[in-house]
């Protein structure tokens, strides 16, 4: 639980850092995405597989722990009470299950791009790769073309329910982390009275940083700070070229 949790805790921070490049402009985030995708396939798929295995093990351990705990108390109290356990700690299973459903949707939406009506691979035109203000060129002298992650993110978050689900999910992630991060230290035995409060505060701060960082993007899109030509427009722009190819 703790070790797979640690991997995922660090992953979300890196993921958030990468996503925030959207505020540095279209070229910055597209160049970042291009770099990730141009990693050698074994490395890219190795990392993806490793993360999926961590998610899988994290869930599997959670299921084992839950089943063991259910078995350990076959007859429950008629009157239940909680003395001090935090809301976050008591709702880890709930926040975890909702997060899992979000992760599945999120990967289908932005990584696999297979959500009906949101197949960005066919809806978006490729854009030239720009790094440090310069358009990168192939040896032939043509610009290197790359997938337009920026427009995909903006178009994705312009759909209100996508943004809403996203913000709720990262809110639950914040909740999950405020218990998870401090719990992780306890489980591997690196916590004591002196460090307990510091670690609790660290977990709280970490959860909030992750929440604010991730939630900033859909919020900025919804209030119009981040904008892109509407998806329909780019599709419309494609139509003349498609007609042109058909006419040929």
């Amino acid at each position: 639980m703790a070790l797979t949790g640690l991997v995922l805790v660090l992953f979300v921070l890196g993921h958030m850092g990468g996503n925030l490049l959207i505020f540095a402009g279209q070229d910055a985030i597209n160049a970042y995405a291009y770099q990730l995708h141009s990693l050698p396939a074994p490395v890219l798929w190795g990392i993806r597989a490793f993360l999926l295995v961590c998610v899988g093990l994290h869930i599997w351990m959670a299921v084992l722990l839950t089943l063991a705990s259910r078995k350990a108390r076959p007859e429950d109290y008629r009157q239940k009470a909680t003395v001090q356990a935090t809301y976050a700690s008591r709702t880890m299973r709930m926040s975890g299950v909702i997060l899992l459903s979000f992760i599945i949707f999120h990967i289908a939406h932005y990584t696999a791009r297979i959500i009906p009506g949101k197949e960005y691979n066919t809806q978006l035109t490729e854009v030239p790769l720009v790094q440090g203000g310069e358009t990168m060129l192939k040896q032939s002298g043509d610009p290197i073309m790359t997938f337009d992650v920026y427009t995909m993110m903006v178009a994705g978050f312009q759909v209100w329910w996508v943004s809403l689900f996203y913000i709720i999910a990262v809110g639950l992630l914040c909740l999950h982390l405020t218990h998870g991060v401090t719990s992780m230290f306890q489980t591997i035995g690196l916590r004591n009275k002196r460090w307990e409060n510091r670690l609790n505060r660290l977990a709280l701060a970490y959860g909030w940083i992750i929440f604010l960082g991730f939630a900033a993007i859909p919020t900025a899109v919804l209030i119009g700070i981040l904008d892109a030509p509407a998806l329909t427009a780019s599709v419309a722009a494609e139509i003349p070229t498609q007609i042109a190819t058909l006419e040929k």
Partner: protein
Amino acid sequence: MKLTLKVWRQKNAQTKGRLETYVLDSVSKDSSFLEMLDILNEQLIADGEVPIAFDHDCREGICGACSLTINGIPHGPDRATTACQLHMRRFKDGETITIEPWRAKPFPVIKDLVTDRSAFDDIMQAGGFITARTGSAIDANEIAIPKDDSDYAMDAAACIGCGACVAACKNASAMLFTSAKVAHLNSLPQGKPEKDRRVLAMVGAMDEAGFGSCTNYGECSAVCPKEISLDMIAQMNRDYLTAKVKTFFSQKSA
């Protein structure tokens, strides 16, 4: 004061139990919680009914026998207080109080509010001791122990083994009890030589008994009448991890 009591009645481990309601008039607010139950039992006996069975022994908060879950909280609403040290002035006149036994699979109900806590004895027998020649004790100051270490060991040794930690844990985990016993001996020079073997054996016995798993709620420490700290659990986790790694690379068996 007048009280409505909902008490768990169960004939034995095989039969199903249920909450029975009793009304008790004119209880002194200065009586202890167990004295209040004594008064109820006197009344039940006078009415020709079977009195309520509950565990108690020293009634001064040091033996760990009393084991009542009062309104959902083991040992009741007061912090660092056993049920026997709880007084009726803590409750309001006319209040309804629910009294249940410790609830965990390894603690089967023997009768009413009395549970069999010998699973704790099994954990102790697995490693809650030091292997030393018996006979005349050595001089008390022969082994120098730093004050910090002895204080820490004393904090751990304060555990009276009542089982409130298990009862309060939402997972029915026995981590706080086991860790207090492990930390007590593992932090003293007399216990250090068998540190690894002890933690592995005691955790093994704990798991075998069927206790739940720790997910760091912290309810155990909050209800503990001796305020055993979560530090003990962290230390046990650390000692366990170290022992696992050491035995993995060692040729000796633990």
